[in-house]
């Protein structure tokens, strides 16, 4: 009884901390998005609210709450309210299965995992929840009773479905290497520097592209394409309902950063782990690991912003073309090549260095394959037919 209550309290505290971190990161992502946008454009950015403008998220929140909360007359009211709630809900649910750190020893032999729940279908859970997330947009867009909202919502839905295929295929390669769907097992297989990015460079590129599309971020932010759709699915939204949609987007960014760190960058693994364990003990080392994962996730948030202020938006047909005829075939190639990466070292007793070599050799093979395909099938295409 004593044991379970300790674990229960620790779990409750942990969930609260993760919740707070997620919300805090999301709130400050809005601030850093504007600051980074300014830096990328040689400007200063928001610096009036508090020192360096660090109170800007508070000011934004106050502004959001003070705005008139408007519900269109002919909308379906309950669905209209449900939309942003669903978006927020699903965004917050995903982080439950991400292992933010290794086991912490609470004393008295009580071990505590820095992870919400270690389910054996961890990565499927992430997928399921992320796919649910699009319902928030879809329901909101539908309930608004507005053509532009509906078009934006349809775009979001079809885009998410298209890119989920390529994303799933790129994850299959990870699953082949790990042999488990559990996020914890995936991270543990990557300890001591055997990060999946070394074995899955192509898979990672596919995954990050799909993550951009899943989060509706530039260059794939067509659901909220201002020039065509006014505000997209949130055209009719105002006040904190709009705030929830925007907030959910930033939470999704952070969570997908954490997922990428978990799947490809060793999760909470970091160099010199053994040295830290020997000199400061395991708990300190694992807390540093927790920080390492947050740091990796934040780095990906930065990459999201970096890409946003670099690349222009895709056209809708380009988006679909890239997803279906570009990413999915490459992802399939990657699955096959992963088979080689697993099979060849096992067959000939090669070291892990050799499998990294095979993985990297996959890139030129892929490019040669693309070149052959390009000269046979795509060779007649003129420049005008493509993205410029």
């Amino acid at each position, binding site marked *: 009884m004593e044991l379970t209550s300790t674990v229960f309290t620790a779990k409750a505290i942990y969930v609260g901390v993760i919740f707070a971190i997620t919300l805090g990161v999301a709130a400050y992502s809005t601030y850093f998005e504007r600051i980074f946008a300014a*830096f*990328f454009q040689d400007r200063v950015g928001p610096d009036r609210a508090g020192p360096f403008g660090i109170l800007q998220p508070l000011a934004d929140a106050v502004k959001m709450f003070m705005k008139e909360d408007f519900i269109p007359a002919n909308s379906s009211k309950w669905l209209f309210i449900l939309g942003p709630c669903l978006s927020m809900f699903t965004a917050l649910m995903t982080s439950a299965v991400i292992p933010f750190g290794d086991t912490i020893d609470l004393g008295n032999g009580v071990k505590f995992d820095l992870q919400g729940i270690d389910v054996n279908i961890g990565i499927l859970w992430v997928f399921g929840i992320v796919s649910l997330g699009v319902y928030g947009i879809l329901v909101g867009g539908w309930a608004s009773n507005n053509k532009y909202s509906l078009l934006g919502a349809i775009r979001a839905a079809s885009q998410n479905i298209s890119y989920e295929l390529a994303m799933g295929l790129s994850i299959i390669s990870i699953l082949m290497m790990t042999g488990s769907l559990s996020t914890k097992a995936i991270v543990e297989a990557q300890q001591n520097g055997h990060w999946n990015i070394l074995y899955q460079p192509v898979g990672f590129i596919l995954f990050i592209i799909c993550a951009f599309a899943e989060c509706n971020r530039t260059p794939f932010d067509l659901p909220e394409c201002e020039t065509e759709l006014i505000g997209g699915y949130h055209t009719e939204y105002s006040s904190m309902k709009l705030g929830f949609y925007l907030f959910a987007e930033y939470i999704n960014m952070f969570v997908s950063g954490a997922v990428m760190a978990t799947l490809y960058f060793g999760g909470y693994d970091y160099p010199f782990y053994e040295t830290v364990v020997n000199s400061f003990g395991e708990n300190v080392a694992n807390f540093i690991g927790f920080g390492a994962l947050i740091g990796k996730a934040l780095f990906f948030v930065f990459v999201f912003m970096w890409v946003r202020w670099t690349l222009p938006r895709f056209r809708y047909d380009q988006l679909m073309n890239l997803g279906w005829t570009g990413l999915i075939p490459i992802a399939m190639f990657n699955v096959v090549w992963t088979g080689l990466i697993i099979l060849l070292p096992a067959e000939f007793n090669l070291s892990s260095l050799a499998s990294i070599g095979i993985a990297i050799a996959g890139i030129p093979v892929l490019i040669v394959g*693309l*070149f052959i395909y390009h000269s046979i099938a795509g060779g007649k295409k*003129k*420049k005008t037919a493509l*993205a410029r």
Partner: protein
Amino acid sequence: MKLSNRTKVLEQEELTLAERIYLPAIAGGMLTTLKHFFQKPVTIRYPEQKRYLGPVFRGHHILKRDQNGAERCTACGLCAVACPAEAISMVAEERKKGEETLYREEKYAKVYEINMLRCIFCGLCEEACPKEAIFLRHDKMVPVFNDRNEVIFGKDKLVEKMDDRYLRDGWK
């Protein structure tokens, strides 16, 4: 028909493989933006930081005094005539005995008013003035006013203070 020989025929070539993969171009673009990320911002934070507007900027009006401190304006009204916005009005007065140190000419402006809502800062008053009495300062702007009563600037705001004289580079 060819109007000039500067026409360029654009050959629409096939995209190379590197272009079709997109990623090299994206990496190049991201490097460019990263370079800008570390550059100094070009922003001038306006209310705190003001840039020099040049020696020919036309700002706050000033009614000059001569080197002895006597007002130069003789209330001839040429500035008011020249003013396209009809912003200037004045009342003339004859100089009394003993006021020679105050006013340079035998006639002076008892009241001299510029309506700052009308003024378009064209500088025609400055050009029209035969006594070199009115100028538009290059170093000072008309301050913001929040009330209609503050709009008309009288002599108290326009006449030059002897302890804070306005001198242009060319006059020195």
